[in-house]
């Protein structure tokens, strides 16, 4: 029997398939090698730390992002032995991503977070207390903040530092739309807001919208809800027991107002139950929405937009008790920096310290329109200049209308947001009865925090 020689077998197609596979495999291994080389530990003596933020330093159109690029650049210059890697994680995801990453020991070394999520992070053991670094501070240093030390401390341990302070219950309104309807001043009470919104709502234009989508974690509502409740003498949860109080009389008034705005006054669209804050902001910018509540940090960006020049202005959240008094300032809703894992503590702490430095805060104030967290920063002449008038006005309001930052101490905030969103959506989209819907939501929340 004649054996086909190996040579003749190879002449045909035979071996090539395997070789191709091997070649692809080899390429893959090679690519991974290149990747690993790129990620190689920094040159001898250099420490690499990862910083999670939702501002993209490469975004030239966003003043806050530009500010970040500058102060992070200043940090790098001042710390040549630290290699800082920024990673952009969107603010809607950054809490969950940090929880997951921390559980897997793959968390970054420093992370920016919305301050209302610091408590859940601390409870989950995802972030480290910073007391070992602050124990040596003098009392003057500790008191150099415009906010209370305990705002970001839980059970006596300090977990985060504010990265900026924002009195968040600001109302942005379109001067042009209000003036066209005959109003010279913005609304100061809920009643006025209702009246003026009604007058403005016609055709394409809507007077007011409150978005209640879960996908952005009730970003707008969770900022104004606490002051709304405070004005009415209540709060979202009881400070001592952490149990729900959002369903009591104050809450019923608030949600009834929302429901009436849809069905009685016919201002808000039913669809607001599933809108997110981006959609609403978009409408505001394009001239189809007359007013929206948001935090002070938006001013820098919006005031510079072509389409809004001279057309937008700010005032305070209208008083929901319909009294001619200002609403207590909600200074929560700012952002904080936390330290998730302990691998590179010293370097991570350097970054956290730098972000609170006068230098960094000044850059953030000048370029990004953010209020500094430290009284010593405020001593800079920049804050005496006319361009800083709006900002100092916010600070004055804050100190004139203080309120303990109870919203930072809410247990399992993600659950509260979930049940509130559900309740709000039912009240608005299904026109369900306010009292019972809120009661059910309160039960759900209480069941999960025990």
């Amino acid at each position, binding site marked *: 029997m004649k054996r086909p020689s190996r040579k003749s077998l190879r002449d045909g197609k035979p071996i090539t398939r395997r070789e191709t596979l091997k070649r692809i495999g080899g390429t893959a291994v090679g690519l991974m090698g290149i990747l690993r080389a790129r990620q190689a530990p920094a040159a001898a003596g250099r420490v690499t730390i990862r910083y999670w933020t939702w501002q993209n330093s490469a975004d030239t159109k966003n003043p806050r992002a530009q500010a970040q690029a500058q102060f992070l650049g200043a940090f790098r210059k001042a710390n040549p032995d630290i290699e800082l890697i920024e990673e952009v994680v969107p603010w809607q995801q950054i809490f969950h991503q940090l929880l997951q*990453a921390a559980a897997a020991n793959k968390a970054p070394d420093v992370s920016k977070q919305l301050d209302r999520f610091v408590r859940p992070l601390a409870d989950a053991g995802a972030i480290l207390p910073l007391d070992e670094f602050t124990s040596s501070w003098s009392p003057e240093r500790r008191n150099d903040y415009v906010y209370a030390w305990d705002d970001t401390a839980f059970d006596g341990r300090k977990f985060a530092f504010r990265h900026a302070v924002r009195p968040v219950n600001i109302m942005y309104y379109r001067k042009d739309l209000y003036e066209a309807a005959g109003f010279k001043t913005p609304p100061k009470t809920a009643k006025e807001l209702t009246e003026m919104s009604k007058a403005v709502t016609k055709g394409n234009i809507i007077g007011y919208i409150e978005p209640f989508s879960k996908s952005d974690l009730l970003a707008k509502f969770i900022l104004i809800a606490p002051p709304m409740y405070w004005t009415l003498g209540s709060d979202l949860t009881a400070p001592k027991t952490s149990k729900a109080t959002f369903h009591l009389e104050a809450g019923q008034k608030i949600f009834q107002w929302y429901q009436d705005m849809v069905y009685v006054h016919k201002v808000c669209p039913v669809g607001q139950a599933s809108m997110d804050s981006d959609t609403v902001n978009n409408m505001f910018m394009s001239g189809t929405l007359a007013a929206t509540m948001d935090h002070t940090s938006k001013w820098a960006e919006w005031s510079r937009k*072509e389409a809004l020049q001279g057309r937008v202005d700010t005032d305070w959240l209208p008083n929901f008790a319909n009294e001619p008094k200002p609403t207590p300032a909600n200074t929560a809703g700012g952002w904080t920096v936390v330290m998730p894992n302990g691998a590179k503590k010293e370097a991570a702490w350097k970054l956290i310290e730098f972000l609170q430095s006068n230098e960094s805060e000044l850059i953030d104030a000048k370029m990004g329109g953010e209020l500094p967290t430290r009284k010593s920063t405020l001593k800079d002449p920049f804050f005496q200049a006319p361009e800083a008038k709006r900002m100092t006005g916010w600070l004055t309001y804050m100190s004139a209308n203080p309120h303990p930052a109870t919203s930072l101490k809410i247990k399992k905030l993600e659950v509260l947001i979930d049940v509130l969103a559900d309740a709000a959506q039912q009240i608005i989209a299904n026109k369900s009865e306010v009292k019972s819907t809120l009661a059910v939501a309160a039960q759900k929340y209480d069941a999960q925090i025990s």
Partner: protein
Amino acid sequence: MTHRRDVHAWLRLIGLYVTLLSASIFALAPIYWVINTSLKEERQNISFPPRWWPDPITLEQYVNVLTGSSIPRNYLNSTLLAIGTVVLVLVLGIHAGYAAARFEFRGKKPLLFILLATVMVPGIVTLIPVYIMAVQFGLHDTHLVLILVFAAWQTPTVVWLLQAFFENIPRELDEAALIDGCSRLGAFYRIVLPLSQPGLAAAAILVTVWVWNEFIIALNLTASNATRPLTVGLFFFVSESGIQWGKMAAAAGAALVPIIVFFAFLQRRFIQGLTAGATKG
């Protein structure tokens, strides 16, 4: 009589084209809209009524996306994951498929059933424990864990597909090689495998498309730009862009165009992969 039939034929042809044209518009409209939006200047995107074509056309959004974000890195990751998964799946699949096609052995039926039964398992059922396992083994946020998970999900389909292809290759060829002194595996590698090139290509393409488009597993098993694939990068970029439609559309376009081009060039094999086995009997 003939005249009426001619008119009928004409009308039917016109009807055919109109129907197919409408269906094509349906199929392409969303894609057209995204490309349209991505080529416009930002302020044109919040104009009302919407503008149906860009004027002027600008590439600034794409430049923005490709230079000012992690998207290029995400591209690299997706490519790596695709290659890695395809290699692993093919290596596992050709051997298992060959065994299934050529051999009868005890436990074959239940084994194959286990393999195919994974089609019945919704991905979300295993995502929670897989996440926990990845954390426990320290594999969270690595390329390796993604490749392993992706390969596990794609292997059953590929085995099924390759089994069909191998069965189509006459046993006599194996036998001839055996007679000539090849080992069993030798016969496989030298004779059968090269002839199944269409099947391998089809499998590789199907797996590539699936891996390229996979999102939820990657979202929960990665924690850094070093490992995030394009889908997660796109999702983050869109969330972060807020209301900058042009930017979002450019990111979407950047994710869309490669896969459509890939498909357009390889559609024959792709279709073969989809239909293999399903048209048996």
